[in-house]
């Protein structure tokens, strides 16, 4: 029963744990979703910041390069610029160093050139030479524009040379439709003069710049100064952000326009001056343009637009472009790093999932966000709670198994396992709980005593259920202790009865205590309110030995003196001795029959025992009883002793009855004597003798030896209240003989 319920409980616990886990899972899922929401929200919040990083870089760039690029910086999309720069980067980086060199030279050239503007540009030289100077370019570019406006150039020849080069390239450059024409003239003119650095196919911008420089000698020189300066300074701009490059181009264009306006006819004269410079510019332009080509169309347009605006001024644009392009490469690493950084921040925003969630989050009203936050908190709390509950359930389950193990140990203490054989005697025990409430209270014990005797204790504590448990243990161990100490069953019961009477808390215990002496084949048993054992001989069909039950001793704990009866049975042959509790004989067989037929009874028990035969075990017996019984209102406990031997039938040797003075003259004593076969005419004399033998405060033991036709009656005084009384009794016995 207990196992079934425990199984059920375990199942329930498991189911609950499973439900909790499920709940936890759902909660976690909710948490995950809401977390995604929140993260999306935060990402969205951060997004402007993230995209702002480049923007912030852009402003920073203008700060450093302000004059050159920032003011007119077109608001090109960050992505475009970024991509463009990224695309140009590899090529640009390669050229960066060359370009720098060129820049350095070009600056040096302007310095040599007589142009006043070049003078103004000179202060910027040192800065250009130091690659990372960011400030120079601003001033230089600003100075450069005025220089262009001033128009008169001094480095015409050089510029011319470069223009020639550009002219070569110009032809090849079909990117800028109008510019080629204007610049083309100059370019073609100059291209003959010098083909310095025309290795690469010319680009539109290159040609444009060439013509531009040619158009404005001073300006070109100034640009030569600015170019490098820009190229060096621009990095500061370009590094943080790719934007500056195009930006730098754009501002250059207006500047170029201005120049162009002022210097319509100059180009040819200026050409020589700007030769080298122009050549370098071409390089730059080429680089930039090549870079740009690969880049976005928008940038290309801008590049194109610059030359478009003016042929002469177009040179400035390329220059600016080139410078910008150069700057980007120089600090490619930094730029890359920054880009990476910016990408790192922007990455979540670019993910389609996050973008979708961000959109959703944008749609979600603030109030709803609070609700979601509250739900998230709730889900977290529930998850934590369910987690804790699962933990607790696991702990409880563990405790439960431990408790069950403990209960098993306790039950084993009350219903111990018994060896199948104790000496020559086969032993078996069995216990079956009741089919209804009121279980518990039955106990048994079978063990070997020191002198080779086998002791049996079978009992039942009234007040069934858990309250009975401590008392069953108490009674069993007390009795066992007295038996181990060497007391006879009756003495043990009497002593235990005296000791335990006040300790059973109102409950009482019915017990049968027995010892079997294998050598003499004697069974001695004493009952306290308990059914006597069934003793079946080799002829088991003859039924069990019928002991005298009159004057039975009362149970332990009813406030009466117990352990007053004892029987000694000789078992010369094969025999089966069955100790049992009243639950066995009170099992209901047929509820429709009369009362006698309804109870299983001792007779049916003897029959069942005979059916099973000599080798039967207690388990088999109780199984048979349970099989035949409709209901078992009480627990059933049984203990079987199987004794081998001949076919001699067991017989009662001695019946003992302890009497006090009042009982000696009582009606019960008379009935007892009658049941034992004492002739009626002797009874009065026996009772009178017993009354006399028992003192006013003492008892006397009636001992009936039933070996003959009429029992031998012996009277002896007994004091079993104390253990030392045993010795006294032994002495008395010796004296009597």
């Amino acid at each position, binding site marked *: 029963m207990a196992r079934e319920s425990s199984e059920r409980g375990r199942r329930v616990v498991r189911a609950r744990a499973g439900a909790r886990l499920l709940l936890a899972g759902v909660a976690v899922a909710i948490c995950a979703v809401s977390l995604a929401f929140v993260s999306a929200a935060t990402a969205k919040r951060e997004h402007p910041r993230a995209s702002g990083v480049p923007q912030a870089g852009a402003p920073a760039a203008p700060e450093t390069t302000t004059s050159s690029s920032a003011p007119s910086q077109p608001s090109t999309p960050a992505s475009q610029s970024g991509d463009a720069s990224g695309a140009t980067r590899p090529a640009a980086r390669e050229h960066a160093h060359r370009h720098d060199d060129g820049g350095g030279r070009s600056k040096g050239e302007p310095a040599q050139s007589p142009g006043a503007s070049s003078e103004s540009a000179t202060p910027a030289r040192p800065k250009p030479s130091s690659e990372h100077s960011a400030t120079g370019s601003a001033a230089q570019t600003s100075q450069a524009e005025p220089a262009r406006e001033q128009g008169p150039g001094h480095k015409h020849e050089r510029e011319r040379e470069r223009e020639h080069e550009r002219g070569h390239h110009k032809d090849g450059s079909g990117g800028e439709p109008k510019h080629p024409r204007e610049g083309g003239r100059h370019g073609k003119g100059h291209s003959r003069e010098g083909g310095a650095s025309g290795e690469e196919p010319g680009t539109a911008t290159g040609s444009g710049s060439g013509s531009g420089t040619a158009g404005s000698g001073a300006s070109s020189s100034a640009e030569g100064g600015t170019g490098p300066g820009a190229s060096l300074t621009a990095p500061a701009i370009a590094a943080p952000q790719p934007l500056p490059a195009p930006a730098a181009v754009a501002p250059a264009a207006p500047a170029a326009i201005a120049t162009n306006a002022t210097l319509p006819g100059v180009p040819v004269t200026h050409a020589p001056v700007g030769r080298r410079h122009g050549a370098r510019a071409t390089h730059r332009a080429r680089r930039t343009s090549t870079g740009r080509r690969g880049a976005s169309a928008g940038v290309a347009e801008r590049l194109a637009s610059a030359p478009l605006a003016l042929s002469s001024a177009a040179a400035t644009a390329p220059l600016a472009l080139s410078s910008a392009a150069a700057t980007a490469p120089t600090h490619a690493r930094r730029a890359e790093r920054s880009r990476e950084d910016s990408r790192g921040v922007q990455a979540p925003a670019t993910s389609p999932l996050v973008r979708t969630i961000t959109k959703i989050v944008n749609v979600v009203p603030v109030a709803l966000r609070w609700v979601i936050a509250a739900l998230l908190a709730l889900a977290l709390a529930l998850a934590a709670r369910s987690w804790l509950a699962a933990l607790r359930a696991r702990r409880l389950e563990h405790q439960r198994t431990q408790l069950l193990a403990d209960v098993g140990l306790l039950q084993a203490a009350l219903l111990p396992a018994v060896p199948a054989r104790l000496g020559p005697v086969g032993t078996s025990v069995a216990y079956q709980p009741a089919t209804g409430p009121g279980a518990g209270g039955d106990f048994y014990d079978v063990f070997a005593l020191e002198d080779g005797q086998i002791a049996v204790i079978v009992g039942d504590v*009234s007040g069934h259920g858990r309250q009975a448990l401590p008392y069953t243990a108490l009674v069993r161990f007390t009795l066992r202790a007295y038996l181990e100490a060497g007391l006879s069953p009756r003495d043990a019961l009497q002593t235990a009865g005296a000791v335990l009477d006040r300790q059973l808390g109102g409950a009482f215990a019915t017990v049968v205590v027995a010892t079997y002496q294998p050598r003499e084949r004697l069974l001695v048993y004493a*009952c306290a*309110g308990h059914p006597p054992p069934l003793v079946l001989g080799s002829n088991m069909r003859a039924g069990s030995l019928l002991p005298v039950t009159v004057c*039975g001793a009362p*149970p332990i704990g009813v406030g*009466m003196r117990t352990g007053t009866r004892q029987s000694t049975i000789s078992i010369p042959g094969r025999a089966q001795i069955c100790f049992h509790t009243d639950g066995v004989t009170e099992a209901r067989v047929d509820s429709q029959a*009369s009362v006698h037929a*309804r109870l299983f009874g001792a007779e049916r028990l003897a029959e069942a025992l005979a059916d099973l035969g000599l080798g039967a075990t207690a388990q088999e017996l109780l199984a048979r009883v349970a099989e035949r019984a409709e209901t078992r*209102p009480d627990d059933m406990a049984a203990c079987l002793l199987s004794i081998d031997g001949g076919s001699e039938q067991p017989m009662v040797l001695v019946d003992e009855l302890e009497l006090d003075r009042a009982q000696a003259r009582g009606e019960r004593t008379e009935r007892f004597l009658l049941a034992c076969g004492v002739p009626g005419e002797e009874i009065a004399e026996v009772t009178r003798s017993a009354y006399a033998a028992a003192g006013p405060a003492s008892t006397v033991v009636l001992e009936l030896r039933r070996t003959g036709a009429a029992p031998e009656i012996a009277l002896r005084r007994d004091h079993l209240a104390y253990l030392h009384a045993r010795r006294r009794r032994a002495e008395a016995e010796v004296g009597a003989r």
Partner: protein
Amino acid sequence: MRSRDEKTDRPTQASTSFEIGKRELDARTSVVSVAGELDLVSAPQLKWTLVDAFEEGASQVVLDLSQTTFMDSTALGVLVGVQRNLEDGERFAIVCAQAVVLRIFEISGMDGAFSIFATLEEALAGERADTARAI
């Protein structure tokens, strides 16, 4: 009074019937009679009926078990409890002629603890006689 045997799996078949009645012969004497079975189910009711009888002022309570067909250790425990809690001047007698019940008393060894009589008349008369003999 019918009761259903709750400790059984098949209540229809295993239901036990019992009837507990109480009558007062005079101001000092109550007779409690039990018909049917005294077991785990009916024992508690028997207990309270007997306790009530004494608490209502009766000094003599006779338990008539003439119609009782069976008695188990639980019911025996009830009787023991009543017997042990008798106050001075209170008496508890049992009338029982059923061999089954008498045997139960005998086996339990409690037949000596109670004043058991064959008939109600004997019990009512025997109270006095018993008292006389005890002295």
